[in-house]
């Protein structure tokens, strides 16, 4: 849909790291029995697997992260989300599961640069020195809920609710401001 806009239209700030709202991203919440073979098969068809506790697995543009003992978050192309949601719903039709599109309920951000960790170190109670690639962390950024993971070399991705996107970019901008390098 051409009328769809992300919360901040890709707002970007360059400090000692680059912080950006990453535009629209497809997201689907899956609540189900994570041991379900139907779930494994459905994710397998996308080249994914059921992530282990606190993990995020990727195949190309699509990722799926562990959000809780019975909850996953699928990340995909924005336009694909309703279709994937329908496919997964159909695949899990025979069992107790809830699959819903949440793309528009969220905002996604990236923090890029050699000192990207230091931006989030100021906001999130996370031990970044021991945060490996492939781990998804549900945490908070100052006063709001957030989830984050390493999405590339020198890059972290961060998801929060759409309504607080403005607060999030404010946090990231001030925390990445030049002169604020921690080390």
């Amino acid at each position, binding site marked *: 849909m051409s009328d769809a806009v992300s919360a901040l239209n890709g707002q970007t700030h360059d400090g000692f790291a680059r912080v950006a709202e990453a535009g629209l991203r497809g997201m689907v919440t899956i609540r189900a029995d994570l041991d379900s073979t139907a779930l494994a098969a459905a994710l397998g068809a996308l080249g994914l697997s059921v992530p282990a506790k606190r993990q995020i697995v990727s195949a190309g543009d699509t990722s799926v992260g562990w959000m809780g003992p019975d909850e996953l978050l699928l990340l995909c192309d924005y336009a694909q989300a309703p279709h994937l949601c329908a496919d997964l719903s159909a695949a899990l039709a025979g069992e107790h599961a809830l699959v819903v599109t949440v793309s528009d309920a969220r905002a996604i951000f990236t923090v890029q640069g050699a000192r990207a960790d230091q931006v989030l170190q100021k906001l999130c109670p996370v031990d970044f020195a021991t945060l490996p690639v492939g781990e998804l962390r549900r945490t908070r950024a100052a006063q709001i809920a957030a989830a984050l993971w390493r999405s590339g070399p020198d890059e972290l991705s961060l998801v929060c609710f759409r309504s607080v996107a403005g607060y999030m970019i404010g946090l990231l901008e*001030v925390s990445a401001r030049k002169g604020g390098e921690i080390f």
Partner: protein
Amino acid sequence: MSTRLAKGGRLIDRAVPLNFTFNGKPLRGFAGDTLASALLGAGQVMLGRSFKYHRPRGLVASGVEEPNALVGLGRNARFEPDQRTTTTELFEGAETRSQNHWPSLDFDVGEINDKLYKFLPAGFYYKTFMFPRFAWKHLFEPIVRQSAGLGAVPREADVDRYEQAYAYTDVLVAGGGVAGLAAALRAARTGQRVMVLEQTPHWGGRAPVDGGQIDGQDAGAWVKHAVQALEAMENVTLMTRTMLAGLHDHGYAIGYQSVGDATPGDGRPRHRLWRIRAGLTITATGAIERPLAFAGNDVPGVMLAGAVRDYIVNWAVSPGDRTVIVTNNDDAYRTALAVLDAGLTVAAVIDARPRAAGPLAQMVRDRGVRVLEGRGIAKVHGRKAVTGVAICAQAGEGGVIEQIACDCVAMSGGWSPVVHLWSHCGGKLTWDAVGAMFRPDASRPPLGDAGQPLAQAVGAANGLLTLPEIMAEADLPAVAEPEAPLEPVWAMPAGAKEALKFKSFLDYQNDVKVSDVQLAAREGYESVEHTKRYTTLGMATDQGKLSNINGLAVLSDALGQPIPATGTTTFRPPYTPISFGAISAEARGEIFQPLRRTSMHAWHEAHGVAWEPVGLWRRPYTYPRTGESHRTAVNREITNTRTNVGLLDASTLGKIVVKGPDAGRFLDMMYTNMMSTLPVGKCRYGLMCNDNGFLMDDGVVVRLSEDSWLCHTTSGGADRIHGHMEDWLQCEWWDWKVYTANLTEQFAQVAVVGPKARMLLEKLGGMDVSAEALPFMTFAEGTLGGFPVRVFRISFSGELSYEIAVPAAQGLAFWQALHDAGGEFGAMPYGTEALHVMRAEKGFIMIGDESDGTVIPQDLGLSWAISKKKADYIGKRAQERSHMTDPDRWQLVGLETLDGSVLPDGVYAVADGFNANGQRHVQGRVTST
């Protein structure tokens, strides 16, 4: 008079002179100076006035314990009062101002208080201002407020920024002196992650000044090599200018880093507050020297012996040409040697002990200095600067034996381990009679979750006051001059007369004297905590770092009990004051608090909205046009909605999907009425109560499919109700097959309301919205104007109404499309106040207006929404209790004024008579109007 020495100065760089001012007077120091060393080096001995008696005061110490030398620093938006000169680094252009005087530092009207000391004893305020009662507010308080307080309050908002950072470590070392560095090396070599925090800009603590040898090297050289070794290790983080301010439960520690204090305006944050999780905290915080309590021990020029040594060795500043040293221990003799090495004169060493026979004393004697044994200072001469001392027998009551001219007095009453961090989280202390000090009791440390020690004290902080003892703890050999034992001296002379005790200061910052503590004891104060509050001992910004031990020793003596029986006051974080900026960090201005915005937020703003805060959301209250009051705007919006079509941004409404085989059963428990019987495609209004029966939320429930429902909640209630549902599912009915998802933010929602609402939607087109296809309390999915929508025929306003949900990313475009298409129908946005009025006029309740946490649905005439058929729902049992069924409970009723006027919101309907408190009886109040 103090001055800068021509040579020396371990920490200063004479090639980099820095200009600064004191009370407008231009002065000069060097890079590496503190404000204190720069002021002293520039000949400024007197730096301020005391709090209560306005006595002239100068530097006493060289570190965090300094009670007197506080200044106002900076100007305008960078002005800050009460800055401790001893811990503030000098920078180019620093503007400093002395405090506590009027009109000037040299001539101060408040000095009259000093003459009135006999009339201003401990508890003076408590005793004096009790009667008459009215006088406190109108007479005493205004006067006290004008004369009290330290620095001036800043007048402008702070332009600097502040931040916080999280850190995780196995071992956290507080203090970068030799004990801390040695402990850090040992821990780091085991491969653990180690953080070392040093509050000053320099490593090594006192050792480079005090001398001695460690592992075959000079202490200074050993420090350098130890730091190099730590810097080379990947698992070690070293931070200077960072104080460990507090140690809390579970190894949570707060560090306070000075980042940009000395470089204002360079873009760096001023302070950074560290929130650290540490497996073990090693407190290597050193020791603080105790003053001696003799008459006039606060005259500018009377300093701690260790501080005199620091100023000479570290910054090449001479506190005076002729120094008298007064001590009860051997360490102070090191100061005599430092003074002599700088080419200055030691007029005499006054040793309170009957014999001064240690090797350090001998070294001083050998250089031709007079050592007076068994002597004390009866009195210090001078007012704004020391001019001499009167000598007496320590054992006597102060009869003067001789006079010695001097311009500096270096005093030492022994050293107290810094046990603050150890004590913050419950570590216990033990009294060490030999050292006359409280030291950490290693058998009773602060404990972690599994009973493990959270902290370990090392070095001087552990009561080890000599270099060989300190390094032996780390298995390193060290050599220093041996010291003879000290002798506790809590009053000088021991039998000081009243007149002397009136001028023997314990707490410099709050002007508490030996006489005040003794008076408190005579008046019946036995607890040290009570005495502290009565006399204000240790209650100033320095938190009694110099005064606590001396004060409780005096109290113990007055009570005739041993010191450990008196105990200490409580050590509370932070160790020294930390800035409010660092505590609030990024939370100011735009990001003081998260602000929740709907997809249409910017449109509202561009159309002159007046906002209403709803939870963290901002909702349009009304859209006043030029010249319109809010009230006329609201009336216009209502009229338009009732005659044409109104548009409301209802995106904030909570939207929770509930799905599963047990979802119907679950919702029957959540709501007071039946939801399991709702046909697919239909909507039903429901009430939600808490387990005490009180109404907590309401909204329309929609049955989406056989096994899924959509629950609308109030705007402020979405997160709370979602949490409430998950709470019951996870904790009580964990075996029920129900999943929930909070989709509040997935959808933007618009209420299209009014007689022309249907026409507007039909113009957009895409689905059948006729009364036949979409009757009241049903919903349908489809498209409108090309937007994927879910349309609910529900009404929050009582008018013909469609609630339309679109994906939030298209919310603004849909809202715009409605306005574009709605022009011919008179479409106009309306706000929450218009909604409230329309609801109130229809008799619809509003959660938060008609409910306040004490109201049950039955009070609101909502018994029709309570199922009589259900065996149970949350709140049912509670609503059957006698008080809930009392016929005298207030009931919601509708009122119409006879003259058409509007009742003010919240007013009381009064009844006859008054209650026991003299308040008028009431029979009701207006909840909505």
